[in-house]
């Protein structure tokens, strides 16, 4: 009894922490090595309409019924922006409908007129006709301008669709 009491007062059970520390260091090393902070990236959210005509449903027509209709979004109120590319992937010409536009700043102004609340138009989506060689970087500049626009109904423009212009298409 007295022996037991003595042992207790000496500090009780003592764990060997060295092994646990070793393991903890291993875990720490693993997490430090696999630690790679994810880059902060921005994004532009889009709703790309289906390739079939969605508004055509009112006429009880099925997709592909009309062979001559190769416009994928015919009955939506779509605005067409054409971007022609140079051979090295830059923007050659930019056009809204038929009218040529000088650059992305001018495009912003023009789209505000055409799409904006005071225009009275009922466009709800934009079709981008893009030259096949155009680089993604240049395309994003135009997409960026488009997604900044507010439509006549007060919503942000997020419906875009892409159509590829044949190689070597000229304005």
């Amino acid at each position, binding site marked *: 009894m007295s022996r037991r009491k003595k042992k207790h007062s000496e500090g009780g059970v003592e764990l060997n922490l060295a092994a646990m*520390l070793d393991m903890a260091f291993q875990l720490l090393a693993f*997490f430090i090595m696999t630690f790679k902070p994810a880059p902060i*990236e*921005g994004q532009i959210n889009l*709703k*790309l*309409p289906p390739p079939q005509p969605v508004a055509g449903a009112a006429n009880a027509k099925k997709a592909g019924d009309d062979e001559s209709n190769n416009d994928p979004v015919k009955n939506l109120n779509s605005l067409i922006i054409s971007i022609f590319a140079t051979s090295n992937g830059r923007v050659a010409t930019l056009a809204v409908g038929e009218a040529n536009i000088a650059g992305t700043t001018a495009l912003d102004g023009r789209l505000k007129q055409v799409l904006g609340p005071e225009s009275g138009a009922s466009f709800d989506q934009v079709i981008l006709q893009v030259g096949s060689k155009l680089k993604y*970087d240049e395309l994003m500049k135009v997409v960026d301008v488009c997604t900044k626009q507010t439509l006549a109904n007060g919503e942000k423009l997020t419906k875009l669709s892409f159509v*590829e212009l044949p190689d070597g298409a000229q304005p």
Partner: protein
Amino acid sequence: MSGSKSESEADLTPMLDMVFQLITFFMLVTSFKAASLDLSLRLPVVGSARPVETEGEESLLILNVNKEGQLMVYSLPQEIGPYLKAEAKMARLEAKRKSSSFKDTDDLPTTVVVRADRDTPFSLLNLVIKNCQDNGFRKFALKATDKAGS
């Protein structure tokens, strides 16, 4: 007995406490999602691109497209058609599991995150986007950075 005790023995407890704190920190901040991003791509530069808060429940399909138009998944090139078909099938199954009213023809709830190199020509990118649309994906997010350096 006392001789062996007199050898100086460091108290490891505070060190262990600290190591566990560090482990906890690194466990919490490590995200294995970053592994699916191809960091060698140079994203396009768009001044107004801002990080968007995506809610946790939203499912994402990340597509890395390099400038040759190849689809890179965990740094291995994949065939675009079969890969997207398989992903669409998975997304459809998951959507069905979540809500029984989901039909095969409905638009998929998955957002396709397109991370394409800034030099990718449109024709190659359009192949990927078209393929996604054919498989029922409708929601897209185009990734960009806001600084030229990265």
